[in-house]
C-alpha cells in the first residue's frame, strides 16, 4: 500500500477490481433455466438407471431369500427327484452343457462364416445381399417360441425328422442365437481398419490370406465376446425347449447328442416353480441362483476377454 493517495493509482485499482468481480460473476452464475433443465435431465437418467438396477436387485434378493435354504453342493451333484430334500440339478446342468456344446459347434463356424461373407466378400450393391442383411437383423428380434415351433416342424419332425432329441434342441437354440453371433462378428470384423487389409494386400497376399491371417486374428476378441453373450442367451432359454421335448423329471444323465431323455436348467426351474409343494418352489429359487451364477461368470469372462485382448487402433 502506498502511503500517499494518488487518484490515478486508485482509479486503476478500482478498474481492475471491477473487471475482476465482473469476471467472477460471469464464471459463477449459470442462467437459472439452464441449470434447472440440466438438473431435471440428470434426475431422469438416474431414475431410468435405478429402475433397471432395482428390478434386478429385487429379483436377485427374492431368489436368494427363497432359495437360500436349499443352497448346497447337492444341487450340483444330485439328479432330479420328486423328493425335494434329495433333489439336485445335475441332469439339468449336464443337459444344458450338452445343448450349449452343440450350439457352439453349430454357431461359431456358421456365424463367423456368414459375417466374413457379408463384410469381406458381399457386394452391398446387390439386392440379395441387402435382403440377407435385413433378414438377419429382423431374425435377431424374433421371439424364441417361434424358433421352438420352427424346430418342432423342421428338425424334430418334417425334413430332418430327428425326433425329440438333444441335438434338435441344440440346433434350434443355434438358429435362435445365430443372428446375434453374425451381428457381433460383423461388428468385430468391421472394427479392423481397412488400412490393415490394404497393407496385407499390397504385400501380394490374396484376399483369403488377408482375411485369415490379418482380419480374423484381429477380430477374434470381439467375435468371442459376441459368441459368449449369445451362448448366455441360449443357456437361459426355456420356451423353445419346452416344445422340443425337453423332459422334466428325469434322473438319467444325457449320454449323447441323440439321447431322447434330456432336460435343461431353465426348463427344470420352470417345471419346479409350477409345482404345488413349497419345497420344490424353493428348489426352483435355488436353481435360479445356480443359473445366475453361471450366467454372470460367462458374462464376466466375456468382459474380461474384451478388455484383455481388445486392440486399440
Amino acid at each position, binding site marked *: 500500500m502506498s502511503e500517499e493517495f494518488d487518484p490515478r493509482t486508485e482509479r486503476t485499482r478500482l478498474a481492475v477490481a471491477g473487471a475482476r468481480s465482473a469476471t467472477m460473476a460471469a464464471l459463477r452464475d449459470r442462467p437459472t433455466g439452464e441449470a434447472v433443465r440440466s438438473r431435471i435431465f440428470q434426475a431422469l437418467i438416474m431414475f431410468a438407471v435405478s429402475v433397471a438396477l432395482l428390478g434386478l436387485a429385487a429379483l436377485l434378493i427374492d431368489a436368494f431369500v427363497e432359495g437360500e435354504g436349499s443352497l448346497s453342493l447337492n444341487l450340483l451333484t444330485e439328479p432330479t427327484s420328486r423328493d425335494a430334500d434329495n433333489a439336485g440339478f445335475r441332469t439339468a446342468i449336464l443337459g444344458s452343457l450338452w445343448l450349449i456344446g452343440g450350439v457352439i459347434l453349430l454357431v461359431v463356424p456358421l456365424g463367423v462364416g456368414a459375417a466374413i461373407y457379408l463384410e469381406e466378400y458381399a457386394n452391398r*450393391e446387390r439386392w440379395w445381399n441387402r435382403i440377407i442383411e435385413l433378414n438377419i437383423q429382423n431374425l435377431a428380434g424374433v421371439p424364441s417360441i417361434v424358433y421352438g415351433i420352427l424346430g418342432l416342424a423342421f428338425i424334430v419332425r418334417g425334413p430332418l425328422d430327428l425326433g425329440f432329441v438333444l441335438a434338435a434342441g441344440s440346433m434350434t437354440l443355434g438358429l435362435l442365437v445365430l443372428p446375434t453371433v453374425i451381428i457381433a462378428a460383423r461388428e468385430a470384423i468391421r472394427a479392423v481398419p481397412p488400412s490393415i487389409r490394404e497393407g496385407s494386400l*499390397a504385400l*501380394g497376399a490374396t484376399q483369403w490370406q488377408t482375411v485369415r491371417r490379418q482380419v480374423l*486374428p484381429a477380430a477374434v476378441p470381439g467375435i468371442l465376446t459376441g459368441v459368449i453373450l449369445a451362448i448366455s442367451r441360449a443357456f437361459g432359454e426355456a420356451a423353445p425347449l419346452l416344445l422340443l421335448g425337453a423332459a422334466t423329471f428325469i434322473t438319467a444323465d444325457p449320454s449323447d447328442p441323440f439321447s431322447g431323455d434330456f432336460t435343461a436348467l431353465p426348463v427344470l426351474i420352470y417345471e419346479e416353480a409350477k409345482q404345488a409343494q413349497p419345497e420344490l418352489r424353493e428348489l426352483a429359487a435355488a436353481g435360479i441362483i445356480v443359473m445366475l451364477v453361471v450366467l454372470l461368470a460367462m458374462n464376466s469372462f466375456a468382459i474380461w476377454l474384451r478388455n484383455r485382448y481388445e486392440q486399440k487402433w
Partner: protein
Amino acid sequence: MTEQERRTEAQRAGSEGDRRGLSQAIAVEQERPSKGLKRETLFELEDVAVLYDGNPAVREITFDVFKNQITALIGPSGCGKSTLIRCFNRMNDLIPSATVEGKILYHGEDLYGPKVDPVQARKLIGMVFQKPNPFPKSIYDNIAFGPRTLGMKGDMDEIVERALRRGALWDEVKDRLGDNAYGMSGGQQQRLCIARCIAVEPDVILMDEPCSALDPISTGKIEDLMMEIKDDYSIVIVTHNMQQAARVSDMTAFLIVELDASEKNRTGRIVEYDETEKIFTNPSDSRTEDYVTGKVG
C-alpha cells in the same frame, strides 16, 4: 511356392531381355514426356484416366517411370496423386466404383491385361501408405508375414534381420522383436512398413505420402533410407512436401486439379514431367513455376 520364384525370375529375366528393345523405343518416341532420356523404362503410361462412378479423378496421364530412380508425384490437394499411384499396383481394383482407362505398361507388359493377376502384380510392386499401418502383431511377425504368405524360402530369422537392417530399424528393435508393433513411434512404424515391403523383395516400391504423419527427424530418416535403397528398387513417391521431392527424387511429375464446366467434379491432369532439377529450377510451364516457388498451392 517355387512357382512364385520362377515367376519372379521370369519377370526379371524378361526385363533384362527387354532392356535393349525398350531403350530403342524410348529413343524413337522423342515426343513423349520422357524427353527421350536414355534410361530403362519401368512403367509407361498412355492416356491413363481413373474414374470414380464415371467421374474422372485423373485423366490424360501420359509419362514414363524409370527403373532405379525415385519418381515424385507432386501437386495440390485433390489433384489425384494418390489415385494415380494406386494404379501402379492395381490397388484401385479394391474400390468397386473405380475404373482405370488407358494403358499402363510394366516392363512392356500391359498391367491391366486380361491375363494379369492383380495379386501377382502386388507381389512385385509393393506399397507404403500415408498412415503407418503395421499389423497388430509383433515386430517380427510384421516383417515375416509377407515372406511367409508368399512362401519365400530361407531362414526366416535371417530374412527378418535383413529387412530390418535395410529399413534402418534393426539397431532400434533388435532386442524387442517380440513386442507389438503398436508400441513403436510413428516414424518407427513407418520404417517398419517400408522394411515389411522390402522383405518380400519387390521390384518397385510405391510410397503414398509416407512422411505426412511424421516429424522432421523421422522424415529425414526415411528420406535417407529411400536414397539408400534406390539402387535396388525403383521408387514412386507421392508427396505434398516440395522440399522432399526436390531432395530425394530424380524425376518429378507435376499435376494440377481442374474443375469441369459444372464446377462439380475435380480432375487431375499432368502439367509437366521432367528431371527434378529442371522442374524446380527451370520449369517450362508457368503453372509449375508458380507452384514450386510457392506462389500458389
